[in-house]
């Protein structure tokens, strides 16, 4: 199947998923006990205003009509207003999303920075002490919840050895250095569990690839060992890693919610958790919707990138 057709097909397949996600998030608001209009008005409640608001937002119309209206507003950039702060949620999201994206990218980068060398070294000397050390560390790494990892890092780098700030945030536009200093602990916290998982994965796929004939051929041709490992073996061993990258972003999003709360990072996650505590449901809805759509989008991008990394997928008629 040509690349263009594959990408097009993947894009078309994403449409029902996106619609499914929006329907679920929309219905979620209807499952939440309590009337949103009563909640919205608070002390200013009166029958007449309530009726007016219901009419304005189409809340008196049938459910499917409400859904279509709501979807239309979303696409127009009207994500509703927060009840507590009484300002457009969309503006808040525009400010907070880049923070969360930066956190996730830094965490992923850190995870790969640890996982690729650790996985390769462990695979090259299986059952050596390097391997055992890497595997034991990785094993413990996948068993630590993010918030506890955050606590341990705060203890080490902020309280015992005062080198990094515990909480707070400085925008990237203000100062790159100050921004990074504040982001290091959250990003490392978020990245460590992923690093542990990816190390195990890279080790396994590297061990498989390195026994294949083409690697032996490369060695027989007299290619230097370093080049055999890095160019011939690693490139193919990383393909399974790319496939799970989309899934990893799912875990990173979940982790970001916790990590942003621990370190008071002003991203979308802390925005959502704060809103849940205050029962600010329009804000909760926006938070859930944005993360869910972001996850779908990342998976789409990973699927498309995959074609370029693994040429075999193009020729497979069953690719979907």
């Amino acid at each position, binding site marked *: 199947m040509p690349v263009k057709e594959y990408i097009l097909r993947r894009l078309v397949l994403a449409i*029902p*998923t996106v619609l*499914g*996600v929006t329907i*679920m998030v929309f219905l*979620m608001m209807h*499952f*939440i*006990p309590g009337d949103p209009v009563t909640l919205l008005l608070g002390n200013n409640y009166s029958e007449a205003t309530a009726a007016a608001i219901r009419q304005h937002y189409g809340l008196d119309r049938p459910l499917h009509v409400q859904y279509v209206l709501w979807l239309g507003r979303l696409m127009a950039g009207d994500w509703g207003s927060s009840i507590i702060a009484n300002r457009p949620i969309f503006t808040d999201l525009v400010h907070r999303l880049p923070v969360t994206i930066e956190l996730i990218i830094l965490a992923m980068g850190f995870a790969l920075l640890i996982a690729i060398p650790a996985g390769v070294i462990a695979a090259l000397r*299986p059952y050596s002490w390097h391997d055992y050390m890497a595997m034991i560390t990785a*094993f*413990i790494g*996948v*068993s*630590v*919840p*993010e*918030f*506890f990892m955050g*606590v*341990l890092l*705060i*203890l080490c780098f902020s*309280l015992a050895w005062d080198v990094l700030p515990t909480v707070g945030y400085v925008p990237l536009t203000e100062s790159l250095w100050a921004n990074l200093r504040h982001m290091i602990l959250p990003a490392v916290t978020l990245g460590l569990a992923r690093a542990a998982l990816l190390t195990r994965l890279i080790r396994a796929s590297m*061990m498989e690839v390195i026994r294949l004939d083409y690697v032996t051929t490369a060695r027989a041709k007299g290619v230097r060992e370093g080049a055999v490992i890095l160019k011939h073996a690693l490139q193919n061993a990383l393909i399974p890693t790319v496939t799970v990258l989309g899934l990893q*972003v*799912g*875990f990173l*999003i*979940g*982790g970001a*919610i*916790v990590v942003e*709360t*621990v370190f008071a990072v002003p991203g979308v996650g802390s925005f*959502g*958790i704060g809103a*849940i*505590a205050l029962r600010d449901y329009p804000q*909760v809805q926006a938070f*859930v919707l944005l*993360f*869910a759509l972001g*996850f*779908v989008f990342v998976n789409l991008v990973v699927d498309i990138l995959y074609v370029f990394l693994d040429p075999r997928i193009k020729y497979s008629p069953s690719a979907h």
Partner: protein
Amino acid sequence: MRYEASGVFPSSAQLDVPDPSETTARSMWLMTLRRLRRSKTALVGLAIIVLLFLVAALADVIAPYSPIQTTPQSISVPTWEHPMGTDLLGRDVFSRVIHGSRVSVYVGVVSILLAILVGIPLGLTAGFYGGRADQVIMRLMDVMLAFPIFLLAIVIMVILKPSTMNVVLALAIVRIPILARIVRGSVLSVKENEYIEAVKALALSQPRLLGRHILPNCLAPIIVTATLDIGNAIIIEASLSFLGLGTQPPTPTWGWDLKQNLTLIEINPWITIFPGVAILVTVLAFNLLGDGLRDALDPRLKQ
């Protein structure tokens, strides 16, 4: 066309043929057990889990103090009297950690059992019958999988209101699509085996075919995933408690205790560390056992 066991063709029982699944099944489990016994790490995991169950069951007997009784002796560092210190309200952290095991073990195990109970029939139906049923079930599962797991758990907790029972429900719901997918995948591959053709030729009833011949051959991946999932479920439970979306105080949970004591970290880090270590050790134990089970059940995966 399907023949009933009592119909035109004699069933295996009538022919007095020993059911092949009986002998193979027994030796497979024996072999698994033998391999598992050789894995030291899996045994360590199992030992910790057994200990954990004992602690959870006997919490009232083991804990030296009440986990919820407040005392004036607050924020104490570890002493002989209070080996893990006391929290802001003067409650013994050691006793709270012991009692906290109950929620973690209960939520971890029950939620996964519940997910298995729903996920297996869904996966079996989708994989075995295919067609319309497969389409409907798997599309629904796909939409659920389009959400990051933790986000979905949060959404469910917002809808259901925080309580231990609802955490169990939320965790079961987020695991169902994953289990259904695994079961469906195994059924699809098991279905193609020749012995299933042979069993079909014996004209067994469909429940018997599914229950006796297909499901047992799909059990290995289910058991491995379930064990590892208990660890994951305990992490998610603790994270939800940490965010205040899980079991509500004063019931002790490791996640909520850690969050509460975090505000005192500069004065007394110990009372934050111990609940965290409890979570770490518990999750580690389930991961060790799950990993050992994977190697034992599927030796091909091990070099």
